[in-house]
Every structure is written in structure tokens, then in C-alpha cells.
């Protein structure tokens, strides 16, 4: 898979944020699959991804994400199209 690289980085970020080394992300993973993925953890997660991958999300982009597959799609798109300076 072309986005394997994103998945592996994301997996690492998720494990760090949720302090759970058993997390294995799939495109179908949703917030209800991961214990503790609430609104507070979500913001921590988003900023961790932004810092690590040097991208920045918009309000509207975060509103329409339903699973990890869509998040990866968005990250892929952002990595290709926009890079903000660190």
C-alpha cells in the first residue's frame, strides 16, 4: 500500500497518545474502537499529527472525518498539496 508509511507513523502517534501499545489501526478503525478516544484526546491526537507530519488541519476538515481511513486520506492529500513551515 502506498500509504503504509502514513499508517505506521499514525499507529505510533496513536499508541503514544492513548498510551496503549496494542493499538493496530485499520482504515475502518473509528473512535468507538479505541478506549479513551474522546473530544479531549482527539485534540491531542490532531496536534500530535500536525507536529509530527508538519501539516495543519482546518476546522471543516476535522468535522467530516468518520474513520482512520478518511483521516489517512486527508493526511495524504495534505502531504501532497500543502506543507506549512515547522
Amino acid at each position, binding site marked *: 500500500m502506498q500509504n503504509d508509511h502514513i499508517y505506521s507513523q499514525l499507529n505510533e502517534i496513536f499508541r503514544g497518545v492513548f498510551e496503549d501499545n496494542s493499538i493496530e489501526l485499520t482504515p475502518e478503525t473509528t473512535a468507538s474502537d479505541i478506549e*479513551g478516544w*474522546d*473530544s479531549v484526546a482527539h485534540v*491531542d491526537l490532531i496536534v500530535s499529527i500536525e507536529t509530527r507530519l508538519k501539516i495543519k488541519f*482546518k*476546522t471543516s476538515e476535522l468535522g467530516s472525518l*468518520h474513520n482512520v481511513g478518511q483521516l489517512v486520506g486527508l493526511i495524504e492529500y495534505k502531504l501532497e498539496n500543502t506543507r506549512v513551515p515547522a
Partner: protein
Amino acid sequence: MLFNSYPFLFGFLPIALIGYQVAAHFHRRAVVLWLALASLAFYAYWKPAFLIVLLISIAFNYAMASLIARKLPNRIPTEWLLTFAILVDLGALCYYKYLFPFLNFFNRHAHLGHAWGAVLLPLGISFFTFTQIAYLVDLQEGGFEQHGFADYLLFATFFPHLIAGPILHHAEIMPQFQQRRDYRLRANDLAVGFSWFIMGLVKKVLLADKFSPAADQAFAAPHSLSLVAAWAGLFSYALQLYFDFSGYSDMALGLARMFSIDFPLNFSSPYKATNVIDFWQRWHMTLTRYINTYIYNPIALRITRWRVAHGLKSSRKAMSTPKGFLALVATPTFITLFLAGIWHGAGPQFIVFGLLHAVYLSINHAWRFFRGTKAPAPAGTRSIASYLGAAASCLLTFLAVLLAQIFFRAAGVHDGLAFVAGALGLHSAAAVAADPLHYAPAPGRLLSIALGLAIVWCCPNTQQILARFKPALEVTGADRKPALLHLSWRPSPAWALVLGVVLFYTVVKMQDPSSFLYFQF
């Protein structure tokens, strides 16, 4: 027009369905136009003058969208256009919803002796205002093309959601209006949608409306409630609100489904929640999603990014320190819930309601940091202790929710506090005796409360009953857990017979249709 009224059931709905079927023979545009016009008629039936408010709002927001998308050529920065549009939208909302209550409140407390009167609230104004603001925010940030006017008109007015939600997001609905498909009615969707609608109607007419007199009575005289009367009144209100809003949501999703449109879920057995975070993920889910996306996230992200840029951490560990907790959790939570409280109404009691929930959520998050989140043991391996623990958590959550609901329903903070005193048995015997009506509720009333709570806690919700037919856009984690009782709908003669009989009985009982509680928001 109310979903639970004869003109809707026997006039509007059949005409809307037949017109849809006829329009589907022509073109997608005919379908969209028909549904939009029908929705406008639905709205105008209540008070034709307010149709003008709705149409002005839609025309204004669509024009602003065209300016932002540069479909109407201009050079004004899009941020300015967006800010102007939001200010006008919120200004109109404030005028209709808050100005006169505020002036009268000020008047009462400053003894000015001037009666300001009031203005009638156009139904659904906060819902159609919110939906359109989100559309503009998303459009300004880019990522999609502005839609044609007919599609936009239908998105904003589609009658199943127009008055009280669910609050739709354009990204989940517009593609359904724009699909190239056969738009004629589908037997399967009609069957699922109509069955869902009947279940909602039953909740409203046979349950919610049955609990409302007891709730009204208790909240009308909060200063003379005995302990039992206060609790009976409080449970009655909790059940009324639950069945009213849940019934409304079932009807809304069922109606949309009749036209093969899937809505997002709005309700997922909230009283089964085992903590307050969980409660908000199950109660008025589309409002939670909305305030999360457009209020909580922007505030929390701004604070978190600022901290990260200044070398501070955003991790769980950082949130466990008092300073980190205050900045990363408590501040965005309190601002968000304060606004959510005000959204529900103009009185200070709604602020108390919002702030109580902010306190609950902050405590809940703090608990998670210090205790950690534990995944529940897989079904079958759980011990009795863990079931008891879950039941205790559920009960504690329910009590917290009930306390906040006192202020949600009371006429003011003073009345709310008096109600709390009643529920704690603090009213003097003399005060209680002066009002014998509230002294002891009839045994029948207590029995119906027990029955209502049994339905809430033991029965599957309607999306679980309809689970085989993918009733909504998404299944929630909560709905995957089976309820104590199992029920599964299928398009069979038995189900048709049962629902038909229930519908007949409900329609006979539906003589004096009452409004839905969430219409006032």
C-alpha cells in the same frame, strides 16, 4: 405542522410522497424542487409570516456563500464575508431568541417598570441558522464547490429535519440529493421508514405525553414538593424529555428514510450511558458533533497549538497537571458548555444547566487521566462485580443528568434550587401540607415511572431494532452492545400487523397533538 397531527399524517405526508413519486418520473431536479416546495409549505402551515424569515435567511446565506465562493465576483477577503454573515445570522437569532427575554429580565431586576413585550420565535430558527453557518464556514475554508440553489434550498429546509434537527452536515446529505439514481419510492425504504416513524409516534403520543402532566405539575410548584413528589416529578420529566426527543428523532429519521435519504443518528439510549462523556455521545448527537466541530475543537486546538509552539506539552501527562488541565481541558469545556447552555434558552437557569455539565465533564476527564481508561472485558467473561460496577456508573450518571435537567426545565434558578431542596426532602412539613396535591403521587403514576425506566434501560433502541436494514448513516459503538431484551424488525406480516394495530391505537389517542419540547430551541 406537527408530525403527530392528523393534517400531517393524512394530508401532507401522502401528498409529499405521491408528488415525489410523480416528480421522480421526470428528473432529479423535479424531485429536489418538489421536496423543497413541500418543505416550505410544511413550514408555512404553522405561521405563514415566518416563512418570510426562513426565506430571507436562506437567500442571505446563499448570497453570502456565492460571494465567498466568488460565484458573485468581488474582492472582499473571504474571512470578512464569513464574519459578516455569521454576525448577521447570530444577530437575527439573538433578536428572536434572546433580546426580549433579556430586556424583561433586566427590567425585573432593575425595577424599570417598563414591559418590553415579546416576539414570537420562528420555529427551528436556531437549527436552520446553525446548519447554514456550518455550510459557510466549511465553504470559506475550501474543499468543496458551492452547490446549486435548489439543492441548497432543500438541504436547508427538508421537512424531516427543519424544525428540530438532526443538525445535518452538507457533506453527508448533499451527495444523497445529487446522486444519479432512480428516485422513485422504494418499497424497502418505505417499509423501514414508516415502521421507524410509527415507533417514534408511539413514544411521543403514548409515552412522552403521558408523563408530561406529572412533570408540569411538579415544576409548577417547586416550593411545596415533598420528597416523593419531587422525585416522581423529576423522573416524569426525565422520561417525558427522553421519549419526546427520542420519538421526534425516530420520526425525523423514519420520514427521511421513506424518501431513501439516510440521516445521521441523533439519539442512542442516552440514559444507558455509564459516564457523562458517554452521555453526550448519545444525547442529541448531532448537536454534540456540531459544537465539538465549530466551538470546542477550534478553541481547544488554538490553545493546544499555542502551547506546543511555546515548548509546552499537550500529552495526557501535561493534562494531568493542574495548569495543563485548566488550559487544555477545563477552559474549552466550560466555554463550550456555557454556550451550549445558552443555546437552549434565554434564562440564567440554562447557564446553570450548561455549567453543571461542564463540571461533570471536567471531573469525568480528570477521572480518566488519574485512573486511566479500561477496556471492558469481552462479553461472557465479565464478572458480576463488573456488571454491578457498570450499573452503579449508569445510575450515578443518570442522577447527575437529572440534577442538570431540573435547571433545564425550571422556570428560573430560584425555582430550580427550590426543586433540588424538595428532592432532598428539605421543604418543611407545613409547606408541603399547604399543597396536598404534591404530597403523594398516585400509585399508578409511580408504576408508569417504573415501566418507563424499564423501557429505557432494558429495551433495544429503534436503530437496534432496525439494525438489519442499516437505518442511519453510521452505527455507534454504543448501539453495537446488545440490549437486555432482543427485538429485531423485519418486513414480515407479523410486524406489519403489530405496528398497524399500534398505529391505529396511537392515531385514535392522538386527539390533541402536543408540540415537541425541542421545538422551543
